[in-house]
């Protein structure tokens, strides 16, 4: 049998294989795309709260203490410095997202996860955190503490 006689056969087979291959690929893509999109969680709206009123009175916050409060859906920390100032920062550590706490013995903010230290201005002073904590604005109005984002 000559080469020439086989040629139309192989071309036809090649064409059918090509059809089969592309439809298999198209099928895989049509399955993979919706599954891939399904696995990516939908965006939920960031909390738009620009300020929160805390459930505590200014007088109840003793000097050299700190506590966590909810700011939208993220934790924030309210600190009364030893000098008596009220300050607030995001409590999300800038290193790996742990929640920081106030260390009474050190009189500054500390993250337990990787031993990161922040001073009373939220500046990263020791350990792995790469950036300062985001500062917030604290207003003590009579019996209320209102914390808002910096503009």
């Amino acid at each position, binding site marked *: 049998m000559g080469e020439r006689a086989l040629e139309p056969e192989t071309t036809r087979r090649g064409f059918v294989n090509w059809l089969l291959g592309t439809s298999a690929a198209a099928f895989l893509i049509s399955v993979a795309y919706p599954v891939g999109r399904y696995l990516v969680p939908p965006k*939920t709206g960031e909390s738009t709260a620009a300020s929160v009123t805390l459930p505590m009175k200014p007088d109840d916050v003793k000097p050299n203490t700190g506590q966590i409060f909810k700011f939208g859906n993220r934790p924030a920390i309210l600190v009364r410095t030893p000098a008596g100032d009220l300050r607030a920062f995001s409590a999300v550590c800038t*290193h790996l997202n742990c929640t920081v706490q106030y260390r009474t013995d050190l009189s500054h903010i500390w993250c*337990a996860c990787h*031993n990161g230290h922040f001073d009373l201005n939220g500046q990263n002073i020791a350990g792995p955190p790469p950036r300062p904590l985001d500062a917030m604005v604290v207003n003590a109005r009579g019996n209320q503490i209102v914390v808002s984002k910096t503009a």
Partner: protein
Amino acid sequence: MPEISHGKLWTWLDQRVGLADFAKLAKKKRVPVHRHALWYYFGGMTLFLFAVQVVTGILLLFYYRPSAEEAYESVQFLMAEVEFGWLIRSIHAWSANLMIFVLFVHLFSVWLLKAYRPPREITWFSGMALLGIALAFGFTGYLLPWNELAYFATKVGTEITGAVPLVGSFLLRLLRGGDEVTGATLTRFYGIHVAVLPALVTVLMSLHLFLVQKHGMSVPPSIERRGNDPRTMPFVPNFLLRDVVGWLSALAVLAALAAFLPTELGKKADPFAPAPAGIKPEWYFMFMFQTLKYLPSHILGLEGEVVGVVGFGLGGVFLVLIPFLDRRAARGEPSPLFTLIGIGVIAYVLLLTYLGYTASPTK
């Protein structure tokens, strides 16, 4: 050799399933005997502990409820009210730890005995994939009780994926099922832990075991170079019975640990509480965790954690590619460099793990 006579049931099954082929295979399989043969038992021991995981894991499924509102309470109920619930959970947790430990012994013994030489490269790759899956099992399973330690360990662990260049933030959202670690993360981890990873394990372990059967046990090059073939013993029953001794020893250790040091549950996760002092990941992630602690916040203008993550990533790639990199071992020559690297890695992991448990967490 005279034909062994079999019962009617055996004959019936043989005609339909081909039992005789299996019997022939089992009779033919032999295991080399030499002074490093002890290390052959650790792969089988990993398999045994994995079987314990499957059984106890299925039992835990009967009571566990995968949601942020109910997970902690369902484990609490399991521990306090369900008869032997504490035991099943403790065995699951301890067996996971022992399995990872034995897996590491298996990995490093294969490394130092150069069992990854041709034609066993794919056995090594599938073993590496199984190691990755085992670590993923540990990481996802750790979160499921929804307690404080697990919550923050997961927060840190998933945040680290965010440091992966280019695709980091995408991976982070994909893993967490959102921007934060929430009930959505728990549900996702649960699905991965009880469905995705078991499916992957089934495929990869089948491949791994098939290749081990196909190639037989690797004889270390130092034994091979002596020229004369080492003695062998039959797999059935000689080696298998020794294997069983290993499994029973593992079971004894497991039972003692589970009974005397039952796994604790701790406090329920609270996303609005500060991370507790002394927070730790599982011990097998400790060397990486401790390394991240020592890295300064910036290295050559890059964030320290990015350097750490990329570094460990490259280390992982190196580990996987060892069969291709170690050309001397592939030619059957001594390769002291790779032995040295192996010992160095073991020393690094041991040292950093030790520091992770002893260095003061508060200074």
